[in-house]
């Protein structure tokens, strides 16, 4: 019986001992302090059909770390894994990335379906899109179809590489980069900042005497069965009811908007909180309400991502998939998908640069509210749904609560049941 969990632990310690990755331990989960960049990559390696984006300046070990993990998980040489990635630039085309029509079929006499020569990247189960924001906006659309899918189609033919791990990297905005489309960002499950090594890490890295290529060969290798067994092991981790409830409320906190069609902020086009939509709204400037603090609502993909990454972290850290994990990982799952109000983000201690920290604060608020102040409304609503109390009685009770979920979700839902 393979034991991939212990092999992952070996991989983590090998990366540190071989001076291949010495990131700051910037993520606190319960009592465990871990490096977010490494652990999100590991979590994504344990999942299939999810994409994570490493975001940071040049030389922050983004691409190399993913390739090193690919070396270990796929059991391939580093050179071979590096051949599997595509790098963004304006001259990239679908033909170069995915595959192209085999020209030999036009000269032969054989009849039959069109032959496509798929690239290594297309047929690989480990896909890295390097420097994704160097693809022009139009070409980014290609990835809308590919990310989180099991199959790639071209010229009527389909390539089925199987369940795939997707990774992407990007630099901050430079002169040759392009903004990422919101729809593409929504398909990215988590965005993790990659920081430059700190003082001590820099000192340790200078002790590295061999080339990365040579050291990569010393990393533990996973067998095919071990790599394939990871998603099942993650799926075996149960989520607590508290996490399920907190995830649901978190999504609704961001998505509900009193002034949007069907109270759904994702329907907004043109008008948004930052353009004055919330002026005069009852919830505007209420620090406990999340709705007016960010322009975008969250899609159902966020719910799926939060649940699956909670499980993956519970597996990696060998603990319950509890609220501590959700609190820690949710900001990374959400922050690239939203635009907080500039007036709020520019205040100390964020100074316009702490978007992740600001998102973490919003997440914290939502979870705390769900676990404390929302207790009563959730219980009233659930009893009404289960017909333990009448809908009209529940509506009357709920109407005395000034909570967006009670007002815009629970009451309309109960009204429709009457």
């Amino acid at each position, binding site marked *: 019986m393979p034991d991939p969990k212990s092999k992952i632990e070996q991989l983590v310690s090998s990366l540190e001992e071989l001076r291949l990755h010495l990131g700051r331990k910037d993520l606190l989960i319960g009592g465990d302090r871990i490096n977010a960049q490494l652990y999100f990559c590991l979590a994504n390696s344990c999942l299939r059909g999810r994409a994570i984006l490493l975001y940071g300046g040049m030389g922050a070990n983004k691409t190399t770390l993913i390739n090193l993990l690919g070396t270990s998980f796929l059991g391939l040489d580093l050179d071979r894994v590096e051949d599997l990635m595509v790098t963004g630039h304006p001259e990239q085309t679908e033909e170069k990335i995915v595959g192209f029509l085999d020209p030999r079929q036009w000269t032969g006499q054989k009849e039959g379906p069109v032959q496509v020569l798929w690239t290594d990247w297309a047929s690989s189960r480990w896909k890295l899109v390097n420097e994704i924001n160097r693809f022009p906006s139009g070409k980014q659309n290609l990835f809308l179809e590919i990310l989180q899918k099991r199959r790639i189609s071209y010229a009527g033919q389909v390539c089925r590489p199987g369940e795939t791990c997707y990774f992407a990297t990007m630099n901050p905005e430079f002169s040759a980069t392009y903004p990422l489309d919101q729809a593409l960002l929504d398909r990215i499950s988590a965005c993790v900042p990659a920081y430059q090594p700190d003082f001590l890490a820099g000192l340790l890295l200078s002790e590295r005497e061999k080339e990365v290529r040579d050291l990569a060969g010393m990393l533990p290798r996973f067998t095919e069965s071990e790599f394939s067994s990871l998603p099942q092991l993650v799926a075996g981790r149960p989520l607590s009811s508290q996490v399920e409830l907190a995830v649901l409320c978190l999504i609704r906190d961001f998505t509900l908007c009193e002034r949007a069609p069907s109270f759904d902020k994702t329907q907004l086009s043109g008008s948004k909180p930052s353009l004055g939509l919330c002026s005069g709204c009852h919830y505007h400037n209420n620090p406990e309400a999340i709705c007016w603090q960010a322009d975008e609502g969250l899609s159902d993909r966020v719910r799926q991502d939060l649940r699956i990454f909670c499980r993956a972290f519970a597996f990696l850290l060998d603990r319950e998939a509890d609220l501590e994990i959700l609190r820690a990982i949710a900001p990374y799952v959400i922050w690239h998908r939203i635009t907080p109000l500039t007036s709020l983000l520019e205040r100390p201690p964020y100074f316009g640069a702490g978007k992740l920290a600001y998102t973490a604060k919003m997440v914290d608020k939502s979870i705390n509210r769900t676990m404390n102040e929302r*207790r009563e409304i959730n*219980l009233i609503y659930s009893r009404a749904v289960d017909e333990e109390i009448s809908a009209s009685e529940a509506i009357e009770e709920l109407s005395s609560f000034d909570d967006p979920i009670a007002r815009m979700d629970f009451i309309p839902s109960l009204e429709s049941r009457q």
Partner: protein
Amino acid sequence: MKLSSFMDSAYPQERAPTRPSKGRKDMIFSLEDLADRIGERPDRSSVEELVGEERSQIDLLLSSQPGKRCALIWGYISSLAAEKSPEALHLPSFDYAGLELAKGCIMMDRAGDHVGERMRGGRIVVQQEAGDYLGQEMKGGGIVAASCRDYAFRQMKGGWGVVKGDAGKFLGLGNTGGRIAVQGSCGQRAGWMMRSGRLYVRGDAGEYLGLLMSGGEIRILGSAGRRAGWQRKGGSIAAGRLGQEAADGVLELG
């Protein structure tokens, strides 16, 4: 699984309700909400009465961003919070912070306008620049600021103020008490209509120093601008060097 069973498992323990005992409708959710209840002219006693003693309620309101309408209310809440806080309270740079402060300590990186207005006690420390009307009408306590803009310590009745850098125009206008020390320079018309109290400036002062002054004491270590002590009726003015047209009785220290 029934939804109520799911909720019961999410909230396993029967806990005391977290809502305040004064009734759920009395919970104040925002400064706007509080402003609606107080009406057009907020005062400290009505804010104190409505907000109550509960720390979470004060924190909730204090963390709001006050619009123009709620600036005074936020100021009163900042004072209530500082008075209840066992340690120095760090506040963002909104107007009216420390309004009618009686005790406690407030720390700010920058200060907006009207900070420390009508304060009676306690301390306010502003690490960087303060806005207009710093310590206006203060009666007690002390303020330290790196620098300040115009009308600082206007109509001061007591307490003390220290400006580590430069102060703007109309410093100590109409003062009837208190002590002001400026380690940098101050703009024109410092000590205008001053009736009592002390004003000490280590640097230079602008023109019309002590204009129409009737009491108190002004000391300028550097030079004073033109017309120092113009139409002075009482009090004393001394400056290192005097500008043109200084009034009779104004002392040049040399």
